[in-house]
C-alpha cells in the first residue's frame, strides 16, 4: 500500500491500476485516509475520513483529532509528522473513539488512517488505558463498577465482575481469592486481559503464603493499606502459562461484613509502568466495592441456603408410582418468589414392613388448604402433613384420622389453625378399577370425570378442622373405572377472579366444563391443562406476572391433585372431534 497513493513516480503508475480505480478504491474504503503535504495541509481525504472528522477540508491544515492540540505557532512540519507507530493512538472526538495511525509518505508528507472503535465492553480489556485521560477513565470505572458489582447477588459472579473490572482498568491480570470455606481450600477467580471470560479454580489455603501480603489480606490483618509489592518469586498458580514475568503486584483485602470477603491481586507484566498513586486509589476503590458486593451476595447465599432447607419439607412431594393408577399434582403459590403457601397435597405410601406391628393400610392421598398465605401458612401446612404421617402409625381409617388431626389442631398454640382438606385411601379393585375411600373436612368435594366425558361432584362433606371440638364427617367410597379420574382441588382454583373481563370468578361450573374437556388425557396432561386454564383465567391471558400486577386482585394459592385409574398404556377416551379452543 505504501506509496500507492503517491503521484511522484510515474513509472509505477503505468504498471498499476489506473488513478481512477485507485480513487474509487479510496472512495469506498471503510477506513478514513487523509494525506497531508509537508506543510501540514490536507491534500486529499476520502469520504470515510470526512465522516469521522467533518472538520477535515482539503487545503486547510489537518484539524485537531489528527494533530494533537498544540500551542499556536508551533505548528511546524516536524510536529505534525510524529513517528509512525504500528498501533496508533485512540482519541475521543465528538463522542466517538477514533483510532488514528500515521505513516510517513516521504518528502515530509504524512498519511493518516482513521477508524472508529466500537465502544464495546469486551474491547475495553484490550484498550490501553494509559491513552485515556485520567478523569474519563475514573468516571468510566465508577460507572462500570457500580453497574456490574450491584447487579448480582451471587458471590462468584461478583468475584468474576471484580476481576474483569481489574483487567479493564488497572492490570494485565486480576485474581480474586475467596476466603477458605473449609479452612484448607480457597476458591479463586482470575481474569487476564485478552483472554475471554474469567476462569476459576481451587487452591490449598496454604498457597496464599507464596504471595507476599496475601495471607494477611485474606485474614483481614493487613488493613486496607495496599501497596506495591516486589513481585520476586511470583508463584506459578497466580498467572496462567504464557503470561510472562510479572513486573508489579498489588495485593488488597476485600473488606466484608466484619470478616474479610477475600482478597484481590492485581498484576502487571514486567516492562509495564508500575501502579502509580491514582492506580492505587482506584485499586482500593475496586477492592472496597467488590468486598461489599461479595459479602452481600454471600449473606444472600447463606440465607437462601437456610431458606431452601427450611422449605424443602414444605414443597409438594414427588408423586410416586402406585400400581394400577396414576397420580399427578400441581401447586402454584400466590407469592411469586416463594414456592410455598397454604395449599398442600401429600401421599402416604404403606409401610414396607408390616411385621413390625404397624397398621397395614392402602396408600393415602390428601389435599388441603390452611388459613392464610405465604410462609406462615406453609409452616402450618407442613405441620398438618407431618402430624398425619405420625398419626398414620396408629390409625388408618380416614374419618378417625381426621378426628385426631382436629384434636391436634385445637391443641396447637398458634392462632387460626383452621384447615380444610380431602383425604382419600386408594384401593385397587378387580378389572382395573380403583376405589377411593373419601373423607372431606370443610373442603370443596372432589370432581369425577367419567369415561363418557361427564363430570360429577362427589357427594361427600364434613366440617372444617381446628375450629370445633366435635366434627361431623360423611365419608363415601368412590369407584373409578379404568381411565376415569378423581380430581381434588383447592378453592384457589374455583374462586380465582379474572377472565376476559377481569372481574369474574372461575367457578365450579367452568372447572367442571374444563375437566370434561380433558376426557382421555393422562393425569399429567390433565392437571397441567387445568392449571393453565386457571392461570390464564386469573391473568386475563396476560401471564402470571403482568396479570398479577394489572389485576391487582388478591391471589390465592392453587392446588390440584388427580388420580386416574389404569396406568401407562392408556386407552384414548371417546374421541371428541367437537370444536375446541384455538390454543392447543
Amino acid at each position, binding site marked *: 500500500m505504501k506509496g500507492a497513493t503517491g503521484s511522484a513516480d510515474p513509472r509505477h503508475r503505468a504498471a498499476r491500476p489506473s488513478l481512477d480505480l485507485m480513487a474509487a478504491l479510496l472512495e469506498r474504503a471503510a477506513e478514513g485516509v487523509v494525506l497531508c503535504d509537508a506543510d501540514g495541509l490536507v491534500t486529499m481525504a476520502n469520504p470515510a475520513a470526512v465522516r469521522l472528522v467533518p472538520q477535515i477540508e482539503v487545503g486547510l491544515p489537518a484539524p485537531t483529532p489528527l494533530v494533537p492540540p498544540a500551542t499556536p505557532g508551533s505548528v511546524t512540519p516536524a510536529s505534525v509528522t510524529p513517528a509512525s507507530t504500528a498501533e496508533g493512538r485512540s482519541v475521543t472526538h465528538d463522542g466517538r473513539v477514533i483510532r488514528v495511525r500515521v505513516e510517513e509518505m516521504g518528502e515530509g508528507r504524512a498519511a493518516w488512517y482513521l477508524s472508529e472503535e466500537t465502544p464495546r465492553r469486551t474491547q475495553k480489556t484490550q484498550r490501553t488505558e494509559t491513552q485515556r485521560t485520567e478523569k474519563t477513565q475514573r468516571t468510566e470505572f465508577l460507572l462500570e463498577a457500580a453497574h456490574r458489582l450491584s447487579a*448480582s447477588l451471587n458471590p462468584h459472579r461478583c468475584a468474576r465482575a471484580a476481576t474483569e473490572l481489574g483487567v479493564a482498568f488497572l492490570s494485565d491480570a486480576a485474581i480474586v481469592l475467596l476466603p477458605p470455606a473449609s479452612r484448607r481450600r480457597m476458591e479463586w477467580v482470575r481474569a487476564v486481559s485478552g483472554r475471554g471470560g474469567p476462569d476459576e479454580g481451587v487452591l490449598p489455603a496454604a498457597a496464599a503464603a507464596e504471595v507476599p501480603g496475601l495471607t494477611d489480606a485474606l485474614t483481614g490483618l493487613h488493613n486496607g493499606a495496599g501497596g506495591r509489592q516486589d513481585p520476586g518469586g511470583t508463584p506459578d498458580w497466580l498467572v496462567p502459562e504464557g503470561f510472562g514475568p510479572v513486573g508489579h503486584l498489588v495485593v488488597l483485602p476485600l473488606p466484608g461484613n466484619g470478616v474479610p470477603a477475600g482478597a484481590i491481586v492485581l498484576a502487571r507484566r514486567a516492562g509495564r509502568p508500575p501502579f502509580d498513586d491514582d492506580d492505587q486509589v482506584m485499586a482500593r476503590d475496586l477492592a472496597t466495592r467488590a468486598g461489599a458486593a461479595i459479602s452481600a451476595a454471600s449473606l*444472600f447465599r447463606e440465607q437462601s441456603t437456610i431458606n431452601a432447607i427450611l422449605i424443602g419439607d414444605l414443597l409438594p412431594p414427588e408423586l410416586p408410582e402406585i400400581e394400577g393408577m396414576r397420580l399427578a399434582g400441581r401447586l402454584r403459590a400466590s407469592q411469586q418468589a416463594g414456592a410455598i403457601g397454604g395449599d398442600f397435597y401429600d401421599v402416604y405410601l404403606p409401610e414396607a414392613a408390616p411385621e413390625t406391628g404397624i397398621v397395614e393400610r392402602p396408600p393415602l392421598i390428601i389435599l388441603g388448604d390452611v388459613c392464610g398465605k405465604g410462609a406462615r401458612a406453609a409452616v402450618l401446612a407442613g405441620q398438618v402433613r407431618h402430624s398425619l404421617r405420625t398419626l398414620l402409625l396408629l390409625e388408618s381409617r380416614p374419618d378417625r384420622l381426621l378426628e385426631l388431626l382436629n384434636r391436634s389442631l385445637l391443641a396447637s398454640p398458634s392462632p387460626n389453625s383452621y384447615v380444610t382438606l380431602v383425604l382419600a385411601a386408594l384401593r385397587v379393585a378387580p378389572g382395573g378399577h380403583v376405589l377411593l375411600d373419601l373423607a372431606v373436612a370443610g373442603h370443596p368435594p372432589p370432581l369425577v370425570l367419567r369415561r363418557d366425558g361427564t363430570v360429577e361432584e362427589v357427594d361427600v362433606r364434613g366440617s372444617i378442622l381446628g375450629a370445633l371440638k366435635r366434627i361431623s364427617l360423611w365419608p363415601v367410597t368412590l369407584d373409578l373405572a379404568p381411565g376415569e379420574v378423581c380430581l381434588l382441588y383447592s378453592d384457589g382454583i374455583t374462586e380465582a377472579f379474572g377472565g376476559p373481563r377481569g372481574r369474574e370468578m372461575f367457578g365450579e361450573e367452568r372447572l367442571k366444563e374444563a375437566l370434561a374437556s380433558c376426557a382421555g388425557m393422562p393425569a399429567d*396432561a390433565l392437571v397441567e391443562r387445568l392449571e393453565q386454564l386457571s392461570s390464564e383465567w386469573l391473568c386475563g391471558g396476560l401471564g402470571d406476572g403482568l396479570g398479577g400486577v394489572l389485576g391487582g386482585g388478591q391471589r390465592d394459592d392453587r392446588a390440584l391433585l388427580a388420580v386416574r385409574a389404569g396406568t401407562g398404556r392408556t386407552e384414548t377416551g371417546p374421541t371428541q372431534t367437537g370444536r375446541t379452543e384455538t390454543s392447543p
Partner: protein
Amino acid sequence: MTRDLGDATGRYLELIGRGDEYGAVDLAVGLIDEGVPAEDVLLKVIAPGQRRVGELWASNEWSVAREHAATAVSERAVAAVGGRVRPTPAHGRVAVACADGEYHALPTRIMAEVLRLRGWHVDFLGASVPGPHLITHLHQTGPDVVALGCTLATRLPRAHATIAACQAVGIPVLAGGAGFGADGRYARLLGADAWAPAADVAADRLAAGLPFFPATHEGAPDGGAGDGAGDGGARVGGEEYAYLTRHRADLLSRVVLSRVMDTLREAHAPMGGYSERQLEHTSEDLEHIADFLIAAMYVDDASLFTDFVTWTCRVLVARNVPAESVVLGLRVFRDVLTDCPRARELLAEGVAAARACCQPINGTQPITRTADLQTETSV
C-alpha cells in the same frame, strides 16, 4: 452414523397418538440402545412427531384431548431419553425456562435435554416461570446464561421483561422458540443476546460463547452478540399498546362481544343461525385475536397479527366454521377502537388476511400451516 429415522418417527407418532406411554418410551430408549445418538432421538424422532401432532390438531384430525395425551407421553419419552445417557460435563451452567405465561414447555424441555447431552449443567425451571422466580434462581446458582423459550408470540411482552431482568443481574439470554419469530426478529428487537431457531443450533451457539456480562439496553451503546441479536430493545410497546393492554377487558366486554354475536347471527340467519356453542367459541377466538393484536402492537409488526389471523381462519375452516366470522369480529374491534389508529391499521390488514381465507371450502380438507404460531415448532 447417519440413519434414516423417518420410519421411527412414523411409529413414534402412532404410539403417542394412542397415548401408549410405555410403547413410546421403549421405542425411544431402544433406538439409543441400537446406537442412535440420543440427540437424534430427541430432534429427529420426538420433535418431528410432536410437530406433526400440532398439525393434526390444527386440521381437526386429532381432538385436543388426544393432542394433550400425545404431548404428555412425549414429555415422558424426553425424560426417559435424558435419563438414559450420562454426558460428561464440558461446559458451564445454564438455566432453561419458559417465558411467563408460556405453557408449551416441550420444545424448551427438549432444548434443555440437548444442552445436557452436550455437557452443560442444566437447570430446567419448567413452563410459565414468573420473573421473580427466575431471578431468584439466577442469584442462587449464578449460571453463565439463561435460555428462554417462548412459543406463543402473545408472551413476548413478558419475555421482554424477563430478558431485561436477567441482563440487569448480569446474565446473558439466549432466546428460542417460534414466539420470537421464524427468523428471530423479535429476539433481536427485545434485546436478547442471541437467538437460535432450534435446540441443536442453540447448543452450538452457546458453545461458541456469549458475553460474560450482557450490555444493558437503556441508553447504553449496543453490546449485542455477534449474530445480530441484541441491537437494543428500546422501541417497543408504545402508547397504543399500553392503552390496549389496560383496556383488554373492555375490548372483550359483553357489549363488544354481543355486538359481534349480533353481527354473526344476522350474517348467518339464513343458514339457521349460529349455535350457542359456536358463539362461545367465537368469544374465545376473539380473546386470542385481542391478545395477538396486543402482541403485534408491542413489537409493531403487522405480519405477526396477519399470520395469526390466517392461521386462525384455517383452523376454523377445518372445523367447518366460516372464516367470515373472523372478518366480522375484526371489523367490530376496528369500529370500537376509535382512538387507536395503528391498531385499526393492523385490524384492517387482518380483515384482508381473513378475507383471503373466505373461499368455499370442503370442511375436512387438510390444512397446510404457513404460520407455525402455536405448536411445538421450535425444535
